[in-house]
């Protein structure tokens, strides 16, 4: 890793020419590229895609409707097993109160996520979404693929039927959570009860075909190799070629504290920034790369703006899943805007469809 190093020149040529990078080239970037190369190239690609130099964010709120979940992922400290003490399902009134609070703050999106709770079938969500839509002009970004796959199963529906009914009831888009690493060898180690990589991708394919867009995440820094990270990126890119339904890619680092994998070392700032940059370089067909403030904190979150990030995601009012794991970064709206301006860029509020809202 030397700045004067002429290696990677062929990769640089491809980046400058706007050509697609191969799996092998992605791996080489992880192994050989230095931070300044990655920053320079990822910046170039970000500017090409977002020449207005805007950095967007959405004002939203997480609503964790239940923490009951039977899956027991080793990296999760949020869930309670069915029947265990401390399990909850939020009453509708509580959910409505949270949405009203958000609207009062000028918010436009709720992220509804929970666990795989055997007591909640399709009718629960249809009623909930209809009730929300009847009361509030709000975008429902909700239910990760794992929740939808499980919901279809316990409701005795095909995934397509399940998604179509959710969509009719008011589901607007799907968060790309639970992608973890889309490599089964890794999934078996960190989340043995979760769906396979193919099942996750399939669910997203069906959603996109129905016209439900989604984001996609990657949780790196657990037990995976560099090759497996690139495999994840290539699988996401392939599906995007097919459907065009992914709006944004969101890499975030595994947080070992409080999980069943405490021996794993917490990924560094450099590992985050290179992963963000290589994601920007590999995913030529996904428009937005979103920062993960919650796991990285404001300093590295801001530096990521020089490593390919063009979106700050949701300014979070509430995030139970990550805080239960020990990452405690909370960045208020004014601070996000200050950090964007300090980086010489222009903050802009967007909706969940990535349309810029009037200031």
């Amino acid at each position, binding site marked *: 890793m030397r700045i004067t190093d002429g290696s990677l020149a062929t990769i640089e040529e491809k980046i400058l020419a706007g050509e697609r990078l191969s799996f092998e080239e992605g791996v080489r970037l992880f192994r050989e590229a230095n931070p300044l190369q990655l920053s320079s190239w990822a910046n170039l690609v970000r500017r090409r895609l977002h020449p207005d130099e805007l950095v967007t964010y959405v004002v939203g709120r997480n609503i964790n409707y239940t923490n009951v979940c039977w899956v027991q992922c080793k990296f999760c400290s949020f869930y309670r097993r069915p029947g265990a003490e401390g399990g909850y399902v939020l009453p509708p009134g509580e959910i409505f109160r949270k949405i009203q609070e958000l609207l009062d703050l000028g918010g436009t999106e709720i992220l509804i996520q929970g666990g795989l709770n055997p007591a909640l079938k399709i009718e629960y969500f249809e009623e909930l979404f209809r009730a929300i839509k009847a009361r509030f002009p709000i975008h429902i970004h909700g239910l990760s693929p794992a929740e939808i796959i499980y919901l279809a199963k316990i409701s005795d529906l095909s995934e397509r039927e399940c998604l179509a009914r959710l969509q009719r009831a008011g589901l607007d888009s799907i968060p790309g959570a639970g992608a973890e690493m889309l490599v089964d060898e890794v999934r078996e180690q960190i989340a043995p009860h979760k769906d396979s990589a193919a099942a996750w991708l399939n669910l997203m394919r069906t959603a996109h075909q129905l016209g439900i867009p989604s984001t996609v995440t990657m949780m790196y820094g657990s037990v995976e190799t560099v090759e497996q990270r690139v495999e994840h990126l290539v699988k996401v890119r392939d599906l995007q070629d097919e459907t065009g339904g992914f709006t944004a890619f969101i890499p975030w680092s595994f947080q070992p504290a409080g999980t069943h994998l405490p021996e794993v070392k917490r990924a*560094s700032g450099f590992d985050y920034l290179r992963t963000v940059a290589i994601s920007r370089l590999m995913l030529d067909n996904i428009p937005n790369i979103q920062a993960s403030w919650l796991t990285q904190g404001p300093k*590295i979150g801001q*530096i990521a703006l020089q490593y390919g990030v063009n979106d700050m995601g949701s300014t979070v009012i509430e995030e139970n899943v990550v805080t239960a794991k020990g990452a405690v970064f909370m960045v208020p709206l004014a601070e996000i805007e200050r950090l964007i301006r300090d980086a010489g860029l222009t903050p802009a509020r967007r909706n969940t469809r990535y349309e810029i809202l009037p200031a």
Partner: protein
Amino acid sequence: MRSIRDQLRQAGLAGIHTKLLQGRRLTFEDGMRLYRTPDLTAVGYLANLVRERKCGATTYFVRNLHVNYTNICNKRCKFCSFYAAPNSTDGRGYVLSPEEAAARVAQYAGEPVREIHMVAGINPKLPYRYYLDLLQAVRAARPEAQIKAFTMIELAQIARVARRPLAEVLPELKAAGLAACPGGGAEVFSDRVHEELFRAKLDNQGWFDVARAVHAAGIPSNATLLYGHIETEEEKVRHLLHLRDLQDETGGLMCFVPLAFDPSRTELSHLPVTTGYANLREIAVARLLLDNVPHIKAFWIMITPAVAQMALWYGADDIDGTVSHYEITHALGTTSHRQVLSTEELLDLITEVGREPVERDALYNVIEEPLGVRRKG
């Protein structure tokens, strides 16, 4: 890297790039340009050229201990949350006797410490003898470690209580164990900032007078810049150029350390915390303007280990040390959550980002055979 050429041009830094390649010195205007361009990568690229020219991939670290021998201070600087005023009655004020200071460094007897960093408040009650006893006691407790102690402000105070010129006092301090000076207390060399934030402290000219005397006595020092409060970019560039002039004159500076101001619990607590951009930029600009200072330090306690790791590609070649017992900046949540890194964690930070760790002592002598440490990479 072809992509960077366009970036340098767009950022208005192509002229500076040419100067660097020709080995020419940067001007005040160049410094302003480096502070004002939004393109942090381009600034980092230039700083890294200089860094790699000076020392390649080498990154220095030290196994060190901090001793803050008193927090009693009569300077009442607005940016400080550490001090207790001499007449305060809240019970926070303390002075370590030489024996207590020695006992504190002896506590870490199992650790191969090479540098003892010792700074404190300006406590008017301490006599000259105290400082000599302190140095001797600490040296006797850890003869293998070098003592880097006393900011320029403390040295002025020591000469005052000794009632003798500093030039006479310094050889005695040196004989008692003073190997180097940390150079703190410079803050920002601006009369405006001095008047507003640290009026009672040694003025800017005084700092340079002390530094000259220290270097003339054969004691090398560091220098600092406290940024992220009310200072302007012009003031920072002038600060760096003043230090460059001093170094041309004395050659006594080993390392420059940009210090990120932490507003929490100070009289300036309304100010925001320094950003990651600012942290990297200060390091890069310092590397570029201070062409005659050998080392630039990323002090991880103030800017977080994650940013310090990245700083190794933005001009820094020193990441300070394992730091046991640091008391000046305690803030939680805003700066580093932790006050200690193990040697292994420090080595991991350096090697993961493609740099080569080299252990040093307080004078930047390379420790060829580290004591009981597993070297990596």
